[in-house]
C-alpha cells in the first residue's frame, strides 16, 4: 500500500507550500472545477434529492456488499469472464502479474485507475519485465515524470502546460510546443501505437453493475474504450466497494459522478463492458478478468462508524473545495488518496492510526467537503472521530496531552477558570503592545510568526457584567 513518506505531515506541507508553480496550478484548477460543478448542480433540478438518492444507493450496496459481490461475480462468469478476489495489494499484484505471464504478455496498456495506484501495480509488472504504458493523458504525463497522481480525478493537476511540453520534448527528442493541440497530438501519436501493440489492457472500474456483471468506465479521451477493445486480453481491477446493484442505480451515480467531478453532464465516453466476446457478439475481448481488491476494505466494512466512507463515488469534489488541499496540493498528503476523503480512508485502509493518523488533522473541520459530497458522507465528522481514535489509542503528543489536562483542570470550574483568565491577563502584560502580542516567543511562535496575537483584555466580560449589576 502507500509507501510511508520519510517526512511528517507538517514538513511535507512546508515543502509543498514553497512550490509556487504547483500552488498556482492547483488553485486555478480547483476554482474552475468547483465553478463548473456548481453550474451543473444548478442545472439539474432537485440537486439535494439526487444527493440523497446517491447516498441511499451507496449505503444500501455497502450494507449488502457480500450479496452484490456474489451477484456480480456470478454474472461476470455468465458473460464469459473470470473473477479473482485479492485480499490485499500483494495478492492483487500477483494475480495480475500471473495472468499477464500466462498470456505471454510483454506489453500492457492501462487506462486510469486509482486502485492500481493503491496496489502499486506498475512497478510490480515492470519488475517482471513488462512494458506498462498509461493511456490517460494525465497519467501518461505523470508516468514520464516519475510522479504519482495528486488528485483522484485530475492526476496531473499540479503541472502546467510548459512542464508537460518539456516532458514530451524529452520523449520526442525535439521541441514539442506547449499549446493543447500540439500536446494532445503528440500524446495521441505515441499512444496509438501502444494501444495497437498491447497484449493486455488493464482498466480500473468506476462502477460494476451487479445485475448484469458489467464494468462501467468513464473517460473524456476514449482511452478506456481503446484499452478494452484493441488488446485481446482485458483485466479490470476494482476496489471491493465499487459496485451498484442495477442499471437503474447506475443511472443515478453516473449522473452524479461527472457533474461533481468536472461539471459535465456526461463524460465524452462511457464504456460498459460485459465479459468476453461470446458467439454472435460483434466485438469484445477474447478473455476478460475482473480482479476485486479488498486491501483493508473488509475491515472498514466491519467498522460501523467508518463504513460510510466506502460510499464514496470517487468524484473528487471534496478535493476541489478543501481549503487545505487548495494550499498544499495532493502530494503533501503522502498517501495514494489525498484530500478530505483520503484523510479519512488512508488511516483505515492502512490500519495505521499512528503515522497516517496525522492526516485527519490536515483539516480545519470547516465542512466544505461534507457540504458538497454527492454521497453525503459526513467527512468532517469522520475526521473529527479519527482524531479521537488516534488519541485514545495512545498516539497523542505528550506535550499536547499535558496542556489539555491543565486546561481541563482550570476550565472545568468557573472559579479556576476566572483565576486562569486573570493570570493570563496579568502575565501577558510585558508582551502586550497596543492590544496585541507581536513578539515571536518560543511557545507562541507558531501563531506569532504569521499573525499578531490578540491580547486578553484587562477586565473580562464577566467582570464587567458583575460590576454593571452592582
Amino acid at each position, binding site marked *: 500500500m502507500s509507501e510511508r513518506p520519510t517526512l511528517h505531515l*507538517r514538513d511535507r*506541507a*512546508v515543502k509543498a*507550500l514553497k512550490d509556487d508553480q504547483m500552488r498556482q496550478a492547483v488553485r486555478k484548477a480547483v476554482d474552475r472545477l468547483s465553478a463548473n460543478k456548481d453550474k451543473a448542480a444548478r442545472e439539474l433540478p432537485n440537486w439535494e434529492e439526487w444527493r440523497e438518492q446517491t447516498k441511499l444507493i451507496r449505503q444500501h450496496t455497502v450494507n449488502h456488499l457480500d450479496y452484490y459481490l456474489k451477484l456480480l461475480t456470478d454474472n461476470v462468469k455468465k458473460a464469459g469472464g473470470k473473477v479473482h478476489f485479492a485480499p490485499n495489494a500483494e495478492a492483487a499484484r500477483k494475480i495480475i502479474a500471473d495472468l499477464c505471464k500466462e498470456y505471454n504478455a510483454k506489453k500492457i496498456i492501462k487506462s486510469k485507475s486509482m486502485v492500481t495506484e493503491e496496489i502499486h501495480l506498475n512497478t510490480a509488472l515492470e519488475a517482471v519485465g513488462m512494458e506498462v504504458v498509461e493511456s490517460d493523458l494525465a497519467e501518461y504525463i505523470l508516468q514520464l515524470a516519475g510522479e504519482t497522481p495528486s488528485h483522484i480525478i485530475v492526476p496531473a493537476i499540479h503541472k502546467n502546460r510548459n512542464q508537460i511540453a518539456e516532458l514530451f520534448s524529452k520523449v520526442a527528442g525535439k521541441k514539442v510546443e506547449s499549446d493543447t493541440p500540439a500536446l494532445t497530438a503528440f500524446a495521441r501519436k505515441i499512444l496509438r501505437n501502444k494501444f495497437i501493440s498491447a497484449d493486455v489492457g488493464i482498466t480500473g472500474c468506476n462502477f460494476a453493475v451487479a445485475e448484469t456483471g458489467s464494468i462501467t468506465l468513464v473517460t473524456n479521451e476514449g482511452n478506456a474504450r481503446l484499452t478494452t477493445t484493441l488488446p485481446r486480453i482485458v483485466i479490470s481491477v476494482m476496489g471491493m466497494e465499487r459496485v451498484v446493484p442495477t442499471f437503474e442505480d447506475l443511472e443515478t451515480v453516473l449522473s452524479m459522478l461527472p457533474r461533481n467531478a468536472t461539471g459535465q453532464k456526461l463524460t465524452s465516453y462511457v464504456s460498459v463492458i460485459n465479459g468476453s466476446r461470446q458467439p454472435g457478439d460483434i466485438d469484445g475481448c477474447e478473455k476478460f478478468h475482473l480482479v476485486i481488491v479488498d486491501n483493508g476494505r473488509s475491515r472498514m466494512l466491519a467498522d460501523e462508524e467508518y463504513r460510510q466512507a466506502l460510499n464514496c463515488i470517487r468524484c473528487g469534489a471534496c478535493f476541489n473545495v478543501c*481549503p487545505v488541499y*487548495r*494550499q*498544499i496540493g495532493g502530494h503533501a498528503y503522502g498517501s495514494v488518496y489525498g484530500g478530505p476523503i483520503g484523510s479519512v480512508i488512508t488511516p483505515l485502509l492502512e490500519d495505521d492510526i499512528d503515522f497516517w493518523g496525522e492526516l485527519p*488533522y*490536515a*483539516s*480545519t*473541520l*470547516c*465542512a*466544505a467537503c*461534507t457540504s458538497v459530497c454527492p454521497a453525503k458522507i459526513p467527512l468532517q*465528522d469522520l475526521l*473529527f*472521530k479519527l*482524531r*479521537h*481514535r*488516534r*488519541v*485514545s489509542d495512545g498516539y*497523542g503528543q505528550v506535550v*499536547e*496531552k499535558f496542556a*489539555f*489536562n491543565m*486546561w*481541563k483542570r482550570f*476550565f*472545568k*470550574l*468557573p472559579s479556576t*477558570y476566572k483565576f486562569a*483568565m486573570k493570570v*493570563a*491577563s496579568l502575565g501577558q502584560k510585558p508582551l502586550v503592545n497596543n492590544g*496585541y502580542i*507581536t513578539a515571536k516567543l518560543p511557545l507562541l511562535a*507558531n*501563531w506569532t*510568526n*504569521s*499573525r*499578531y496575537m*490578540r*491580547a*486578553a*483584555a484587562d*477586565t*473580562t*466580560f*464577566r*467582570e*464587567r*457584567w458583575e460590576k454593571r449589576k452592582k
Partner: protein
Amino acid sequence: MKASIFITCICDSMYPQVGEAMVRVLEKLGVTLDFPPEQTCCGQPALSSGYWEYARPVAETMLTAFKNSQYVVAPAGSCITAVKEYYPILFEKDPEKYRQAKELSAKLFEFSEFVVKILKKEDVGARFPHRVTYHSSCHARRFLNTDQYVRTLLTNVKEIDYVPLPHEEACCGFGGTFSVKLPEISEAMVDEKARNIMETKADVLVGVDLSCLMNIDGRLKKQKTNVRVMHVAELLDEGMRL
C-alpha cells in the same frame, strides 16, 4: 423576552467589548438578559483535537450553566456548533447528558439568528456609512445555516456600502489547534483570506465568529493594514447609536 448570554471564552477574555455591544443591542430590542456564572468554555479546543476525555468535564459546565435558561445567545457560531454537532457525539454513551445536550442545542442561538428568527427583527434601525465586507464563517454557514440572518441584518443597515468578499465561504485557516499544529498551512489560508479582503478595499470586515475574526485580524494587523475587524453585534450597536 428573557435570554441568557453564553459569552464564550474567547469573547469573555479577549473581546469583552463585543459582549457588551451584544448586550446593548439585545436590550434595546427589549430582551432581558442574564449571565449564568457557571459557564466557562464549550470545550472545543480539546474536543476537536481528539481529547474528548478532557473536553467532557468542561462541556458539562455548559449543560449545568444553562439548565434553566429559556433562550441562550452567543456571539460565536463555532462554539454553538460544538454544542449542536459534537456534544451528541461526546455524550453518546450517557443518555442523561445526551438529553441535556439536545435540550441546550434546541434553545441555543447565534446572535444574528436570535435577532432575526426569534426576535423577528430584520431591521434594527442602524446606520453605518462605511465600506463593509463580510466573512462567512464555516460553522455558521455550513452547520448552523445562519448566514442568511447576517445578510438580512446587513442589508437593512442604512448607508452601508456592502461589497461581497471573493471566496467568502473559504475557511480563514483558524481551525482551533489546527492553526498551531499546522501553522504554515494556516498561514497560507489566512494570507489568501487577507488578500481577498484587501482586494475589496473595504474599511470594515464583519463576521459572526470571534475565533475567525481573531485569526483574520491578527494577520491583517501583522500586515499593517487599516481594515477594522468587527463582530456584527459591534457594527449594529455602533450603527444604532449613530
